[in-house]
Protein backbone atom coordinates (compact mmCIF):
# COMPACT_ATOMS: atom_id res chain seq x y z
CA UNK A 1 0.00 0.00 0.00
CA UNK A 2 1.29 3.47 -0.95
CA UNK A 3 -0.07 6.49 0.93
CA UNK A 4 0.87 10.08 0.08
CA UNK A 5 -0.09 13.23 1.95
CA UNK A 6 0.86 16.42 3.74
CA UNK A 7 2.15 16.21 7.32
CA UNK A 8 0.42 17.82 10.31
CA UNK A 9 2.54 17.57 13.43
CA UNK A 10 1.35 16.94 16.98
CA UNK A 11 3.07 16.55 20.37
CA UNK A 12 3.59 13.46 22.59
CA UNK A 13 0.71 11.94 24.57
CA UNK A 14 -2.17 13.15 22.38
CA UNK A 15 -5.10 11.67 24.33
CA UNK A 16 -8.46 10.59 22.96
CA UNK A 17 -10.18 13.55 24.67
CA UNK A 18 -7.99 15.78 22.47
CA UNK A 19 -8.81 13.74 19.36
CA UNK A 20 -12.56 13.76 19.99
CA UNK A 21 -13.82 15.45 23.18
CA UNK A 22 -16.41 13.52 25.22
CA UNK A 23 -18.93 16.33 24.77
CA UNK A 24 -19.46 15.06 21.22
CA UNK A 25 -19.82 11.38 22.11
CA UNK A 26 -23.59 11.44 22.31
CA UNK A 27 -23.49 10.20 18.73
CA UNK A 28 -21.50 7.57 16.88
CA UNK A 29 -22.21 9.11 13.48
CA UNK A 30 -18.78 9.31 11.76
CA UNK A 31 -19.62 12.52 9.85
CA UNK A 32 -20.58 14.38 13.02
CA UNK A 33 -17.52 13.09 14.87
CA UNK A 34 -15.21 14.14 12.03
CA UNK A 35 -16.33 17.77 12.38
CA UNK A 36 -14.57 17.91 15.78
CA UNK A 37 -11.46 15.87 14.98
CA UNK A 38 -8.44 17.13 17.04
CA UNK A 39 -10.53 20.11 18.17
CA UNK A 40 -9.03 20.54 21.65
CA UNK A 41 -5.41 20.36 20.53
CA UNK A 42 -5.66 22.27 17.23
CA UNK A 43 -9.02 23.90 16.55
CA UNK A 44 -7.92 24.89 13.02
CA UNK A 45 -6.94 21.40 11.97
CA UNK A 46 -10.33 20.33 10.67
CA UNK A 47 -10.87 23.66 8.83
CA UNK A 48 -7.48 23.71 7.14
CA UNK A 49 -6.68 20.06 6.43
CA UNK A 50 -7.32 18.39 3.07
CA UNK A 51 -8.34 14.83 2.32
CA UNK A 52 -5.27 12.60 2.29
CA UNK A 53 -3.28 14.61 4.84
CA UNK A 54 -1.23 12.71 7.40
CA UNK A 55 -1.09 13.13 11.19
CA UNK A 56 2.48 12.86 12.51
CA UNK A 57 2.79 12.71 16.30
CA UNK A 58 5.13 11.86 19.14
CA UNK A 59 4.99 9.06 21.71
CA UNK A 60 1.83 7.43 23.10
CA UNK A 61 -0.64 8.73 20.50
CA UNK A 62 -4.25 7.96 21.45
CA UNK A 63 -3.74 7.43 25.16
CA UNK A 64 -6.68 7.62 27.56
CA UNK A 65 -10.15 6.31 26.90
CA UNK A 66 -11.15 3.35 24.75
CA UNK A 67 -13.45 5.41 22.51
CA UNK A 68 -13.30 4.04 18.98
CA UNK A 69 -14.84 7.38 18.01
CA UNK A 70 -11.23 8.70 18.00
CA UNK A 71 -9.87 6.70 15.04
CA UNK A 72 -13.30 6.95 13.40
CA UNK A 73 -13.19 10.77 13.58
CA UNK A 74 -9.67 10.79 12.12
CA UNK A 75 -10.54 8.38 9.32
CA UNK A 76 -13.81 10.10 8.42
CA UNK A 77 -12.08 13.52 8.40
CA UNK A 78 -10.08 12.20 5.46
CA UNK A 79 -6.74 11.65 7.18
CA UNK A 80 -4.97 8.97 5.15
CA UNK A 81 -2.81 7.57 7.95
CA UNK A 82 -1.27 8.35 11.34
CA UNK A 83 2.49 8.14 11.88
CA UNK A 84 3.65 8.33 15.51
CA UNK A 85 6.68 7.48 17.59
CA UNK A 86 4.40 5.06 19.44
CA UNK A 87 0.69 4.36 19.97
CA UNK A 88 -1.31 3.68 23.12
CA UNK A 89 -2.50 0.08 22.95
CA UNK A 90 -6.29 0.52 22.78
CA UNK A 91 -5.96 3.15 20.05
CA UNK A 92 -3.65 0.80 18.15
CA UNK A 93 -6.22 -2.02 18.25
CA UNK A 94 -9.09 0.29 17.36
CA UNK A 95 -7.28 1.79 14.37
CA UNK A 96 -6.36 -1.63 12.97
CA UNK A 97 -9.87 -2.93 13.63
CA UNK A 98 -11.61 -0.13 11.73
CA UNK A 99 -9.07 0.08 8.91
CA UNK A 100 -7.23 3.33 9.71
CA UNK A 101 -3.60 2.81 8.60
CA UNK A 102 -1.06 3.55 11.36
CA UNK A 103 2.73 3.43 11.35
CA UNK A 104 5.42 3.79 13.98
CA UNK A 105 8.43 5.88 13.03
CA UNK A 106 10.57 7.80 15.50
CA UNK A 107 12.75 9.17 12.66
CA UNK A 108 9.82 10.54 10.71
CA UNK A 109 8.24 12.15 13.79
CA UNK A 110 11.53 13.79 14.70
CA UNK A 111 12.76 14.85 11.30
CA UNK A 112 9.84 15.83 9.11
CA UNK A 113 8.44 19.37 9.21
CA UNK A 114 4.80 20.47 9.20
CA UNK A 115 3.62 20.67 5.59
CA UNK A 116 6.19 18.19 4.21
CA UNK A 117 4.76 15.76 1.69
CA UNK A 118 5.29 12.19 2.87
CA UNK A 119 4.95 8.96 0.92
CA UNK A 120 4.49 5.77 2.93
CA UNK A 121 5.24 2.37 1.39
CA UNK A 122 3.69 0.00 3.94
CA UNK A 123 4.98 -3.18 2.27
CA UNK A 124 8.59 -2.03 2.32
CA UNK A 125 8.29 -0.28 5.68
CA UNK A 126 9.67 3.03 4.46
CA UNK A 127 8.45 6.63 4.47
CA UNK A 128 9.89 9.04 1.91
CA UNK A 129 9.91 12.77 2.54
CA UNK A 130 9.24 14.18 -0.94
CA UNK A 131 10.33 17.69 0.12
CA UNK A 132 13.93 16.76 0.87
CA UNK A 133 14.32 13.14 -0.21
CA UNK A 134 14.89 11.83 3.32
CA UNK A 135 13.94 8.19 3.95
CA UNK A 136 12.55 7.13 7.31
CA UNK A 137 12.09 3.53 8.46
CA UNK A 138 8.78 2.33 9.80
CA UNK A 139 7.61 -0.94 11.28
CA UNK A 140 6.01 -3.77 9.33
CA UNK A 141 3.05 -5.15 11.28
CA UNK A 142 3.08 -8.80 12.49
CA UNK A 143 1.40 -11.37 10.17
CA UNK A 144 -1.82 -11.57 12.17
CA UNK A 145 -2.29 -7.79 12.13
CA UNK A 146 -1.52 -7.74 8.38
CA UNK A 147 -4.22 -10.35 7.89
CA UNK A 148 -6.80 -8.16 9.67
CA UNK A 149 -5.68 -5.17 7.58
CA UNK A 150 -5.95 -7.18 4.35
CA UNK A 151 -9.53 -8.14 5.28
CA UNK A 152 -10.40 -4.46 5.70
CA UNK A 153 -10.46 -4.58 9.50
CA UNK A 154 -11.91 -6.88 12.14
CA UNK A 155 -15.27 -6.98 10.37
CA UNK A 156 -13.81 -9.04 7.56
CA UNK A 157 -12.03 -11.28 10.04
CA UNK A 158 -15.14 -11.94 12.15
CA UNK A 159 -17.19 -12.75 9.04
CA UNK A 160 -14.51 -15.27 8.07
CA UNK A 161 -14.51 -16.81 11.56
CA UNK A 162 -18.32 -17.05 11.66
CA UNK A 163 -18.34 -18.77 8.26
CA UNK A 164 -15.69 -21.21 9.46
CA UNK A 165 -17.76 -22.09 12.55
CA UNK A 166 -20.88 -22.58 10.45
CA UNK A 167 -19.00 -25.02 8.20
CA UNK A 168 -17.70 -26.95 11.21
CA UNK A 169 -21.15 -27.44 12.74
Amino acid at each position, binding site marked *: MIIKGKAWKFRDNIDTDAIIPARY*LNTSNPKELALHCMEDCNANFIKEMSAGDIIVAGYNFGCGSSR*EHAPIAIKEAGVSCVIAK*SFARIFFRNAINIGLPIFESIDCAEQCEPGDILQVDSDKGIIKNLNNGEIYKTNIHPDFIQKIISLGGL*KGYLKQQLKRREQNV
Partner: protein
Amino acid sequence: MGNNIVEKILQAHTDTINFKIGDIISVKVDFAFSNDITAPLAIEFFEECKAEDVFDKTRVGIIPDHFTPNKDIKSAEQSKILREFARKYQLENYFEVGRMGIEHALLPEKGLILPGDLVVGADSHTDTSGALGAVAIGVGSTDLGYAMALGEMWLKVPPVIRFNYYGKLNKWVGGKDLILYTISKISVSGANYKVMEFGGETIRNLSMDSRFTMCNMAIEAGAKTGIIEPDEKTLLYIESRTKRPYKVYKSDPDANYEEIIDLDVGTLEPQIALPHSPDNVHSINEIGEIKINQAVIGSCTNGRIEDLRIAAEVLQGHKVHPEVRLIVFPATQAIYQQAMQEGIIDIFITAGAAVSTPTCGPCLGGHMGILAKGERAISTTNRNFVGRMGHPESEVFLANPAVAAASAILGKIAHLEEVK
Protein backbone atom coordinates in the same frame (compact mmCIF):
# COMPACT_ATOMS: atom_id res chain seq x y z
CA MET B 1 11.76 -19.71 35.94
CA GLY B 2 8.20 -19.67 37.29
CA ASN B 3 5.13 -18.04 35.86
CA ASN B 4 3.39 -14.85 36.87
CA ILE B 5 -0.36 -14.66 37.52
CA VAL B 6 -1.05 -13.15 34.09
CA GLU B 7 0.71 -15.98 32.21
CA LYS B 8 -1.22 -18.53 34.29
CA ILE B 9 -4.60 -16.95 33.58
CA LEU B 10 -3.83 -16.59 29.86
CA GLN B 11 -2.73 -20.24 29.70
CA ALA B 12 -6.04 -21.28 31.26
CA HIS B 13 -7.90 -19.42 28.49
CA THR B 14 -6.03 -20.44 25.34
CA ASP B 15 -5.29 -23.57 23.32
CA THR B 16 -1.87 -22.20 22.40
CA ILE B 17 0.85 -23.83 24.46
CA ASN B 18 4.30 -22.48 25.20
CA PHE B 19 3.41 -18.93 24.15
CA LYS B 20 5.94 -16.23 24.88
CA ILE B 21 5.85 -12.50 25.44
CA GLY B 22 4.89 -10.68 22.26
CA ASP B 23 3.06 -13.64 20.69
CA ILE B 24 -0.45 -12.96 19.45
CA ILE B 25 -2.87 -15.54 20.85
CA SER B 26 -6.61 -16.11 20.84
CA VAL B 27 -8.17 -16.36 24.31
CA LYS B 28 -11.58 -17.36 25.64
CA VAL B 29 -13.47 -14.62 27.42
CA ASP B 30 -15.43 -15.15 30.67
CA PHE B 31 -17.32 -11.85 30.57
CA ALA B 32 -17.72 -9.10 27.94
CA PHE B 33 -19.33 -5.72 28.61
CA SER B 34 -19.90 -2.25 27.23
CA ASN B 35 -21.64 1.05 28.02
CA ASP B 36 -23.86 3.64 26.34
CA ILE B 37 -20.91 5.28 24.54
CA THR B 38 -19.17 2.14 23.30
CA ALA B 39 -22.04 -0.34 22.90
CA PRO B 40 -23.82 1.32 19.93
CA LEU B 41 -20.75 0.84 17.70
CA ALA B 42 -20.22 -2.70 19.06
CA ILE B 43 -23.84 -3.58 18.31
CA GLU B 44 -23.60 -2.09 14.82
CA PHE B 45 -20.50 -4.20 14.18
CA PHE B 46 -22.15 -7.32 15.64
CA GLU B 47 -25.19 -6.90 13.41
CA GLU B 48 -23.31 -5.97 10.25
CA CYS B 49 -21.29 -9.16 10.65
CA LYS B 50 -24.57 -11.08 10.91
CA ALA B 51 -23.62 -12.79 14.15
CA GLU B 52 -26.66 -14.87 15.04
CA ASP B 53 -26.45 -14.64 18.81
CA VAL B 54 -24.19 -13.61 21.66
CA PHE B 55 -21.79 -16.30 22.85
CA ASP B 56 -23.49 -16.61 26.26
CA LYS B 57 -26.51 -14.64 27.49
CA THR B 58 -25.26 -14.78 31.08
CA ARG B 59 -21.80 -13.44 30.24
CA VAL B 60 -22.53 -10.31 28.23
CA GLY B 61 -23.07 -7.14 30.22
CA ILE B 62 -24.55 -3.84 29.04
CA ILE B 63 -24.45 -0.89 31.40
CA PRO B 64 -25.78 2.52 30.35
CA ASP B 65 -23.70 4.60 32.77
CA HIS B 66 -22.00 7.46 30.91
CA PHE B 67 -24.62 9.94 29.71
CA THR B 68 -27.35 8.55 31.94
CA PRO B 69 -29.93 9.35 33.14
CA ASN B 70 -29.89 10.55 29.56
CA LYS B 71 -28.75 14.14 29.24
CA ASP B 72 -30.19 14.89 25.79
CA ILE B 73 -32.10 13.41 22.90
CA LYS B 74 -29.03 12.09 21.11
CA SER B 75 -27.78 10.20 24.16
CA ALA B 76 -31.30 8.89 24.77
CA GLU B 77 -31.26 7.46 21.23
CA GLN B 78 -27.93 5.77 22.00
CA SER B 79 -29.29 4.21 25.19
CA LYS B 80 -32.33 2.99 23.29
CA ILE B 81 -30.07 0.95 21.01
CA LEU B 82 -28.61 -0.80 24.09
CA ARG B 83 -32.00 -1.50 25.63
CA GLU B 84 -33.38 -2.98 22.42
CA PHE B 85 -30.30 -5.12 21.86
CA ALA B 86 -30.44 -6.43 25.44
CA ARG B 87 -34.11 -7.31 24.99
CA LYS B 88 -33.62 -8.89 21.57
CA TYR B 89 -30.88 -11.22 22.82
CA GLN B 90 -32.42 -11.66 26.29
CA LEU B 91 -29.27 -10.58 28.05
CA GLU B 92 -29.28 -11.39 31.74
CA ASN B 93 -26.94 -8.56 32.66
CA TYR B 94 -28.46 -5.36 31.32
CA PHE B 95 -28.65 -2.76 34.09
CA GLU B 96 -31.28 -0.06 33.66
CA VAL B 97 -31.13 3.40 35.24
CA GLY B 98 -32.24 3.03 38.86
CA ARG B 99 -30.77 -0.46 39.10
CA MET B 100 -27.51 0.63 37.62
CA GLY B 101 -24.05 1.63 38.74
CA ILE B 102 -20.78 2.63 37.13
CA GLU B 103 -19.78 -0.54 35.30
CA HIS B 104 -16.38 -1.09 36.97
CA ALA B 105 -17.87 -0.83 40.45
CA LEU B 106 -21.12 -2.63 39.58
CA LEU B 107 -19.77 -5.81 37.96
CA PRO B 108 -17.50 -6.83 40.88
CA GLU B 109 -20.25 -5.85 43.33
CA LYS B 110 -22.70 -8.17 41.56
CA GLY B 111 -20.18 -11.03 41.61
CA LEU B 112 -20.02 -11.08 37.80
CA ILE B 113 -16.22 -10.88 37.69
CA LEU B 114 -14.23 -13.38 39.75
CA PRO B 115 -10.61 -14.33 40.43
CA GLY B 116 -8.96 -16.09 37.50
CA ASP B 117 -11.42 -14.67 34.95
CA LEU B 118 -10.43 -13.19 31.61
CA VAL B 119 -12.65 -10.18 31.11
CA VAL B 120 -12.98 -7.78 28.21
CA GLY B 121 -14.75 -4.44 28.43
CA ALA B 122 -15.28 -1.64 25.94
CA ASP B 123 -14.04 0.97 28.37
CA SER B 124 -10.47 1.78 29.30
CA HIS B 125 -11.11 1.45 33.05
CA THR B 126 -11.98 -2.24 32.68
CA ASP B 127 -8.61 -2.82 34.38
CA THR B 128 -10.34 -2.00 37.70
CA SER B 129 -11.42 -5.63 38.16
CA GLY B 130 -7.80 -6.74 38.16
CA ALA B 131 -8.07 -6.09 41.91
CA LEU B 132 -9.92 -9.43 42.09
CA GLY B 133 -7.02 -11.33 40.52
CA ALA B 134 -8.65 -11.40 37.09
CA VAL B 135 -7.11 -10.33 33.78
CA ALA B 136 -9.48 -7.50 32.78
CA ILE B 137 -8.67 -5.74 29.53
CA GLY B 138 -10.11 -2.56 28.09
CA VAL B 139 -10.73 -2.45 24.34
CA GLY B 140 -12.77 -0.51 21.79
CA SER B 141 -16.21 -1.24 20.40
CA THR B 142 -15.20 -3.44 17.47
CA ASP B 143 -13.16 -5.79 19.66
CA LEU B 144 -16.09 -5.96 22.06
CA GLY B 145 -18.52 -6.78 19.24
CA TYR B 146 -16.17 -9.60 18.21
CA ALA B 147 -16.04 -10.90 21.81
CA MET B 148 -19.84 -10.73 22.15
CA ALA B 149 -20.18 -12.87 19.01
CA LEU B 150 -17.47 -15.48 19.61
CA GLY B 151 -16.59 -15.33 23.31
CA GLU B 152 -13.00 -14.84 22.22
CA MET B 153 -10.51 -12.08 21.59
CA TRP B 154 -6.99 -11.76 20.22
CA LEU B 155 -4.25 -10.30 22.34
CA LYS B 156 -0.52 -9.87 22.47
CA VAL B 157 1.06 -11.66 25.45
CA PRO B 158 2.25 -8.80 27.65
CA PRO B 159 5.35 -8.47 29.82
CA VAL B 160 4.58 -7.83 33.49
CA ILE B 161 6.11 -5.24 35.81
CA ARG B 162 5.86 -6.14 39.49
CA PHE B 163 5.50 -3.27 41.97
CA ASN B 164 6.22 -4.07 45.63
CA TYR B 165 5.06 -1.53 48.21
CA TYR B 166 6.50 -1.36 51.71
CA GLY B 167 5.62 0.68 54.77
CA LYS B 168 2.52 1.58 56.75
CA LEU B 169 0.46 4.30 55.10
CA ASN B 170 -0.14 7.62 56.84
CA LYS B 171 -3.73 8.45 57.78
CA TRP B 172 -5.57 10.10 54.85
CA VAL B 173 -3.32 8.29 52.36
CA GLY B 174 -4.83 5.44 50.34
CA GLY B 175 -4.92 3.55 47.07
CA LYS B 176 -5.34 6.76 45.06
CA ASP B 177 -2.11 8.19 46.41
CA LEU B 178 -0.25 4.94 45.77
CA ILE B 179 -1.31 4.78 42.14
CA LEU B 180 -0.71 8.49 41.44
CA TYR B 181 2.75 8.16 42.99
CA THR B 182 3.44 5.05 40.90
CA ILE B 183 2.32 6.70 37.64
CA SER B 184 4.55 9.68 38.42
CA LYS B 185 7.51 7.30 38.74
CA ILE B 186 6.99 5.61 35.36
CA SER B 187 5.04 8.25 33.32
CA VAL B 188 1.79 8.02 31.34
CA SER B 189 3.41 5.64 28.86
CA GLY B 190 5.63 3.79 31.35
CA ALA B 191 3.59 0.60 31.24
CA ASN B 192 2.35 0.80 27.65
CA TYR B 193 1.43 -2.72 26.40
CA LYS B 194 2.50 -4.16 29.81
CA VAL B 195 0.68 -5.37 32.90
CA MET B 196 1.23 -3.71 36.27
CA GLU B 197 1.12 -6.27 39.10
CA PHE B 198 0.79 -4.68 42.54
CA GLY B 199 1.96 -6.48 45.68
CA GLY B 200 3.96 -6.25 48.87
CA GLU B 201 3.03 -5.69 52.50
CA THR B 202 1.25 -2.38 51.91
CA ILE B 203 -1.06 -3.98 49.35
CA ARG B 204 -1.76 -6.92 51.66
CA ASN B 205 -2.95 -4.40 54.26
CA LEU B 206 -4.96 -2.39 51.74
CA SER B 207 -8.77 -2.63 51.58
CA MET B 208 -10.49 -4.05 48.48
CA ASP B 209 -11.90 -0.59 47.70
CA SER B 210 -8.39 0.90 47.62
CA ARG B 211 -7.15 -2.03 45.52
CA PHE B 212 -9.86 -1.34 42.94
CA THR B 213 -8.71 2.30 42.86
CA MET B 214 -5.13 1.24 42.13
CA CYS B 215 -5.97 -1.19 39.33
CA ASN B 216 -8.45 1.33 37.90
CA MET B 217 -5.69 3.78 37.05
CA ALA B 218 -3.14 1.32 35.60
CA ILE B 219 -4.41 2.46 32.18
CA GLU B 220 -3.20 5.97 33.07
CA ALA B 221 0.34 4.57 32.74
CA GLY B 222 -0.67 2.96 29.43
CA ALA B 223 -0.97 -0.52 30.95
CA LYS B 224 -2.88 -3.38 29.38
CA THR B 225 -4.24 -3.93 32.86
CA GLY B 226 -3.42 -3.89 36.57
CA ILE B 227 -3.65 -6.97 38.74
CA ILE B 228 -3.37 -8.01 42.39
CA GLU B 229 -3.03 -11.63 43.55
CA PRO B 230 -6.14 -12.76 45.44
CA ASP B 231 -5.82 -13.20 49.21
CA GLU B 232 -8.21 -13.68 52.13
CA LYS B 233 -9.59 -10.14 51.63
CA THR B 234 -10.44 -10.94 48.01
CA LEU B 235 -12.16 -14.18 48.94
CA LEU B 236 -14.13 -12.46 51.70
CA TYR B 237 -15.25 -9.83 49.16
CA ILE B 238 -16.59 -12.36 46.65
CA GLU B 239 -17.89 -14.94 49.13
CA SER B 240 -21.43 -13.62 49.40
CA ARG B 241 -21.63 -12.40 45.80
CA THR B 242 -21.48 -15.51 43.63
CA LYS B 243 -22.11 -19.20 43.29
CA ARG B 244 -20.08 -19.51 40.09
CA PRO B 245 -16.86 -21.54 40.46
CA TYR B 246 -13.61 -19.65 40.12
CA LYS B 247 -9.91 -20.31 40.42
CA VAL B 248 -7.28 -18.43 42.39
CA TYR B 249 -3.97 -17.95 40.58
CA LYS B 250 -0.85 -16.53 42.17
CA SER B 251 2.54 -15.62 40.78
CA ASP B 252 5.33 -18.12 41.49
CA PRO B 253 8.08 -16.87 43.84
CA ASP B 254 10.53 -16.96 40.91
CA ALA B 255 8.02 -15.60 38.40
CA ASN B 256 9.07 -14.02 35.16
CA TYR B 257 8.93 -10.19 35.37
CA GLU B 258 10.25 -7.60 32.98
CA GLU B 259 11.10 -5.45 35.97
CA ILE B 260 10.56 -5.40 39.73
CA ILE B 261 10.09 -1.97 41.29
CA ASP B 262 10.19 -1.57 45.09
CA LEU B 263 8.53 1.51 46.55
CA ASP B 264 8.77 2.60 50.17
CA VAL B 265 5.50 4.45 50.85
CA GLY B 266 5.65 4.75 54.63
CA THR B 267 6.21 8.51 54.50
CA LEU B 268 3.99 9.23 51.50
CA GLU B 269 1.78 12.34 51.78
CA PRO B 270 -1.45 12.79 49.78
CA GLN B 271 -0.59 13.07 46.07
CA ILE B 272 -2.08 15.56 43.61
CA ALA B 273 -1.95 15.24 39.81
CA LEU B 274 -1.77 18.74 38.37
CA PRO B 275 -3.14 19.64 34.93
CA HIS B 276 -3.04 18.26 32.32
CA SER B 277 -1.61 14.82 32.88
CA PRO B 278 -2.08 12.05 35.45
CA ASP B 279 1.72 11.77 35.76
CA ASN B 280 2.18 15.44 36.68
CA VAL B 281 2.05 14.39 40.32
CA HIS B 282 3.24 16.32 43.37
CA SER B 283 3.01 15.86 47.10
CA ILE B 284 0.26 18.09 48.54
CA ASN B 285 2.84 20.01 50.56
CA GLU B 286 4.65 21.14 47.40
CA ILE B 287 1.90 22.75 45.36
CA GLY B 288 1.23 26.08 47.08
CA GLU B 289 -2.19 27.75 47.22
CA ILE B 290 -4.60 26.69 44.48
CA LYS B 291 -8.16 27.99 44.67
CA ILE B 292 -10.96 25.77 43.33
CA ASN B 293 -14.50 26.26 42.03
CA GLN B 294 -15.68 22.67 42.20
CA ALA B 295 -14.92 19.47 44.08
CA VAL B 296 -16.01 16.10 42.73
CA ILE B 297 -16.10 12.93 44.83
CA GLY B 298 -17.08 9.68 43.11
CA SER B 299 -16.50 7.74 39.84
CA CYS B 300 -15.19 4.25 39.08
CA THR B 301 -11.94 5.37 40.71
CA ASN B 302 -13.16 6.65 44.08
CA GLY B 303 -16.93 6.23 44.36
CA ARG B 304 -17.03 3.19 46.64
CA ILE B 305 -18.24 3.08 50.24
CA GLU B 306 -14.79 3.49 51.79
CA ASP B 307 -14.28 6.67 49.73
CA LEU B 308 -17.63 8.11 50.83
CA ARG B 309 -16.94 7.24 54.47
CA ILE B 310 -13.61 9.07 54.34
CA ALA B 311 -15.16 12.13 52.69
CA ALA B 312 -17.97 12.16 55.26
CA GLU B 313 -15.50 11.89 58.14
CA VAL B 314 -13.80 15.03 56.85
CA LEU B 315 -17.02 16.92 56.09
CA GLN B 316 -18.89 16.15 59.29
CA GLY B 317 -19.62 19.38 61.16
CA HIS B 318 -18.34 21.52 58.27
CA LYS B 319 -19.89 23.46 55.42
CA VAL B 320 -18.79 23.53 51.79
CA HIS B 321 -16.99 26.80 51.05
CA PRO B 322 -19.42 29.48 49.73
CA GLU B 323 -17.56 29.70 46.40
CA VAL B 324 -17.35 25.94 45.82
CA ARG B 325 -19.80 23.38 44.41
CA LEU B 326 -19.28 19.93 45.89
CA ILE B 327 -20.72 17.09 43.81
CA VAL B 328 -20.78 13.57 45.24
CA PHE B 329 -21.72 10.63 43.07
CA PRO B 330 -21.72 7.15 44.61
CA ALA B 331 -20.60 4.53 42.09
CA THR B 332 -23.60 2.18 42.43
CA GLN B 333 -27.12 2.17 43.80
CA ALA B 334 -26.09 -0.32 46.50
CA ILE B 335 -23.28 1.99 47.63
CA TYR B 336 -25.71 4.93 47.58
CA GLN B 337 -28.16 3.00 49.75
CA GLN B 338 -25.50 1.86 52.18
CA ALA B 339 -24.22 5.42 52.51
CA MET B 340 -27.77 6.51 53.24
CA GLN B 341 -28.18 3.86 55.93
CA GLU B 342 -24.90 4.90 57.54
CA GLY B 343 -25.96 8.55 57.65
CA ILE B 344 -23.25 9.57 55.19
CA ILE B 345 -25.59 11.09 52.63
CA ASP B 346 -27.09 13.23 55.39
CA ILE B 347 -23.61 14.56 56.25
CA PHE B 348 -23.03 15.49 52.59
CA ILE B 349 -26.35 17.26 52.22
CA THR B 350 -26.01 19.07 55.55
CA ALA B 351 -22.57 20.27 54.43
CA GLY B 352 -24.11 21.70 51.26
CA ALA B 353 -23.14 19.09 48.68
CA ALA B 354 -25.13 17.88 45.68
CA VAL B 355 -25.51 14.10 45.77
CA SER B 356 -26.11 12.45 42.39
CA THR B 357 -27.39 9.13 41.16
CA PRO B 358 -24.55 6.92 39.82
CA THR B 359 -23.18 8.18 36.49
CA CYS B 360 -19.84 8.68 34.75
CA GLY B 361 -21.12 12.15 33.72
CA PRO B 362 -18.90 14.63 35.56
CA CYS B 363 -15.67 12.63 35.20
CA LEU B 364 -15.55 12.88 31.41
CA GLY B 365 -17.22 16.26 31.01
CA GLY B 366 -20.41 14.59 29.88
CA HIS B 367 -22.98 16.18 32.19
CA MET B 368 -23.74 16.81 35.89
CA GLY B 369 -20.84 19.12 36.65
CA ILE B 370 -19.26 20.66 33.55
CA LEU B 371 -16.61 23.33 34.12
CA ALA B 372 -16.75 26.80 32.53
CA LYS B 373 -13.77 28.56 30.96
CA GLY B 374 -11.07 29.27 33.53
CA GLU B 375 -12.65 27.14 36.27
CA ARG B 376 -10.77 24.66 38.41
CA ALA B 377 -11.89 21.40 40.00
CA ILE B 378 -10.37 19.03 42.45
CA SER B 379 -11.61 15.58 41.64
CA THR B 380 -11.27 11.99 42.81
CA THR B 381 -11.65 10.82 39.20
CA ASN B 382 -8.92 9.44 36.95
CA ARG B 383 -8.03 11.92 34.17
CA ASN B 384 -7.10 15.58 33.99
CA PHE B 385 -6.48 15.97 30.27
CA VAL B 386 -7.21 19.29 28.52
CA GLY B 387 -10.99 19.78 28.48
CA ARG B 388 -11.66 16.55 30.34
CA MET B 389 -14.33 18.06 32.59
CA GLY B 390 -15.63 20.80 30.34
CA HIS B 391 -14.16 23.89 28.69
CA PRO B 392 -10.72 23.35 27.10
CA GLU B 393 -9.44 26.18 29.32
CA SER B 394 -10.67 24.63 32.56
CA GLU B 395 -8.38 22.64 34.87
CA VAL B 396 -8.69 19.38 36.81
CA PHE B 397 -6.56 18.35 39.79
CA LEU B 398 -6.73 14.67 40.77
CA ALA B 399 -6.68 13.66 44.43
CA ASN B 400 -8.00 11.23 47.03
CA PRO B 401 -11.47 11.67 48.61
CA ALA B 402 -10.10 13.10 51.89
CA VAL B 403 -8.23 15.87 50.08
CA ALA B 404 -11.22 16.60 47.82
CA ALA B 405 -13.46 16.94 50.88
CA ALA B 406 -10.99 19.15 52.76
CA SER B 407 -10.56 21.31 49.65
CA ALA B 408 -14.33 21.68 49.30
CA ILE B 409 -14.47 23.08 52.84
CA LEU B 410 -11.57 25.50 52.46
CA GLY B 411 -12.09 26.58 48.84
CA LYS B 412 -8.52 25.69 47.93
CA ILE B 413 -6.56 22.47 47.60
CA ALA B 414 -5.97 21.60 51.21
CA HIS B 415 -4.43 19.02 53.47
CA LEU B 416 -6.61 17.54 56.18
CA GLU B 417 -4.50 19.21 58.84
CA GLU B 418 -5.80 22.57 57.64
CA VAL B 419 -9.42 21.65 58.40
CA LYS B 420 -10.06 22.63 62.01
